[in-house]
């Protein structure tokens, strides 16, 4: 065992280095600031560039520029910063830019409780920019998972040419915990598929909608173009409705096509259980305690912990719902992911939320009591 004692923010920074991150820009905000600090410390020695931007809009702009020039890029902020990222996230989507965006959630709305926890940006992550394109969001429950999911987030970003959210919270980001990083099996790093030097190049070329276009970095062998406006496969402005729709379908299809493949979850199903608890993030740890307590009392209960929140892993959720009468969805928000579960649960299944946003963790006892399982 090679235990270390680190917090989630440092785990993310170390994961980013493992993933081959070569660029980081961020703007200080509690509880995400230390990621900027760690990246400033770690990146230069690894040949990368890390810097503090003048605001969150610039953080995103720097990252998008660097990502399109070939670097694996990451930025980190909290809720107020995500609001400022919004427009540039749309740009990253239409420009098909690989990028990892860390949101260390804190209590909101607005400035909220700057140093206190919440997981209130769940649907905000899904619908973060105008136009409503799908997003990928991964949510770790611990420092160890944050380390691993950071690598996975980079891999997905590079593989699919999309911005990927890594959703943690103050509770994960700033809590130090014992973890054996070396024991965590990391996936192999994925590199973006670059267009062959000799071939003609179109920045958004695909035949089937779900196909991810090959990329050629700015400064690479091809002359290339990038635009925020509706564009065709060459990356030139277009007003042709057919082409515009084709591109929209493409942004959606490339994510939908991998929904099952990128569904990350932990399942702890009990034979004959009529109660299922679906959770994610730090709350899932309280669920783990609640589940073992309930089982000790002889109450049958199953648990599904999601690490991929978006695209919603519908197949696994539906299969977990089979034979269930009641689903509990505990969340440190007022019931955001519950909307997804309600949409997927058959009408005879009772969907119950356990919710609070008072900055404190939801306890195992609260899950048992509010869930009507006491």
């Amino acid at each position, binding site marked *: 065992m090679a*235990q270390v004692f680190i917090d989630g923010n440092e785990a993310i920074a170390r994961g980013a280095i493992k993933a081959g991150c070569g660029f980081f820009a961020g703007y200080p905000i509690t509880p995400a600031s230390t990621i900027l600090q760690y990246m400033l410390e770690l990146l230069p020695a690894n040949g990368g560039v890390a810097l503090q931007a003048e605001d969150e809009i610039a953080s995103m702009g720097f990252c998008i520029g660097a990502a399109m020039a070939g670097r694996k890029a990451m930025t980190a902020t909290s809720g107020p910063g995500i609001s400022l990222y919004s427009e540039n996230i749309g740009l990253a989507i239409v420009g098909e830019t690989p990028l990892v965006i860390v949101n260390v959630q804190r209590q909101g709305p607005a400035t909220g409780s700057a140093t206190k926890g919440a997981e209130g940006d769940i649907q905000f992550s899904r619908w973060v920019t105008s136009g409503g394109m799908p997003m990928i969001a991964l949510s770790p429950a611990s420092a160890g998972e944050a380390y691993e999911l950071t690598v996975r987030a980079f891999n997905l970003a590079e593989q699919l040419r999309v911005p990927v959210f890594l959703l943690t919270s103050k509770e994960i980001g*700033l809590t130090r915990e014992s973890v054996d990083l070396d024991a965590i099996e990391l996936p192999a790093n994925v590199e973006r598929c670059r267009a062959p030097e000799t071939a003609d190049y179109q920045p958004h070329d695909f035949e089937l909608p779900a196909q991810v276009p090959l990329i050629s970095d700015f400064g690479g062998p091809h002359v290339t173009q990038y635009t925020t406006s509706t564009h065709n496969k060459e990356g030139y402005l277009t007003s042709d409705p057919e082409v515009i729709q084709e591109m929209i379908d493409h942004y959606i299809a490339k994510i939908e096509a991998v929904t099952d493949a990128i569904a990350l979850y932990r399942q702890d199903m009990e034979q004959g259980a009529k109660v299922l608890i679906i959770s994610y993030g730090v709350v899932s740890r309280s669920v783990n305690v609640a589940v073992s307590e309930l089982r000790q009392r002889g109450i049958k209960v199953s648990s599904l912990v999601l690490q991929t929140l978006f695209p919603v892993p519908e197949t696994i959720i539906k299969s977990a719902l089979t034979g269930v009468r009641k689903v509990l969805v505990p969340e440190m928000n007022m019931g955001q992911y519950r909307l997804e579960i309600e949409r997927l649960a058959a009408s005879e299944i009772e969907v119950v939320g356990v919710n609070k946003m008072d900055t404190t963790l939801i306890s195992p006892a609260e899950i048992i009591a509010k869930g009507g399982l006491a």
Partner: protein
Amino acid sequence: MSAPIYKSYMTDALGPLPFCPGCGHERLLKDLDRALVKLQTDPAKVVIVTDIGCIGLADRYFVANAFHGLHGRSLTYATGLKLARPELTVIVLMGDGGCGIGGTHLLNAARRNVDITLIVANNFNYGMTGGQHSVTTPGGAFTATTPAGNIEAAMDICATVAGAGATWVYRGIGYENDLPDRIVEGVRHPGFALLDVWELCTAYYMPRNQYNKKELYNLVEKSGFETGLLVNKTRPEFGAEYRKQSSHLAAVRQLDILEQGFDHALERQTGIVIAGSAGQKIRSAAGIFSMAGMLSGLHATQKDDYPITVMTGHSVSEVNLSPTRIEYSAIDSPDYFLVFSEDGLKKTHTWIGKLPTTCLLMVDEELALPDTNAHLVKLPFGQAAKDVGRLSIGIIALAAMLKQSELFPLAALRTSITRYQPSAVAEINCKAMDRGMALISRTDD
């Protein structure tokens, strides 16, 4: 001189330029093309970054790389591109509109001095959206949004960026024949270069203000703004300086690996709260204590609470130790509670009132406590710290608690201190440990 390899960096493959007849942008783009031909840079190494607005339509008429981003943010993409690939020639085309909405990027690009050339196509209004006023609209001018004349003052872009530290600043009228040469100079300048180029929006600004080419020249005098090369100085370029610094930076800090060297007798998750004041090294003591637990084969979590103004008020750390993986890290029912300052007491006052009878509450003997059900032990932590060192009060209290509780061996704490703290600190903290342990034998007497 040999014949140029690149005869033009523009293409009419997508048809003629899209601007209104007489629009100043057309002439500016052609001057930029002339400048690029003079520079003869490989088009694959040139990036034209365009802002939003009519000027933003320019990107697709170049055969060099083109990057068309959000309104006002073009300098940010340019910065990312240039820092990622220093060998690129990065030229930004932005309207006066972009200078307003992206004002902070303008100031910060000037301060930061990344090697980017910004050409402002300054036509004193927002052409694309119908001729509204911008930050450069002259006082009194008529625009769609200043129907009775502009009340706001026009921003002197050059003076503004110069004030922000720009190293190369030029202002000129778009009709000047030397503009291509000026652009060449700006591009060659090793740092942030800005060209504020005044031109005409024939669709909106011209008719509304009965403007013409002559008026544009008159405006120079009326505005009192200077023209020509206004700043030309050298300051280290950000990227080059950053790379230089990086090569000097020490190797990355390695994580402390905590190999188990001791045993523990803990049977369940145990919550410990340590409440003191800012400046008492509470976080550090809690960390060293947690790591000592890990050296004894325990799992640990640590959470710290302190005011945003870190040098005043309370500092409270919550530590969990457990023989198994820790899931729920909040401490609803503490097993050990240490308080040794007024700030710490104030912060945890209500909590202390609700402590269970099973909790061992160890407090400094000077503190006046609320009623509590916890098992209370008063000890002279403050006095001990006066002897050993103010910053070691956390270790004193934790050593006392550890001796009393036997959660894991005292030797593990000593190892954690000597192994993971700088030697000067460790020396004091070893003494602090002895003092803390001695406090317990004293109460036993």
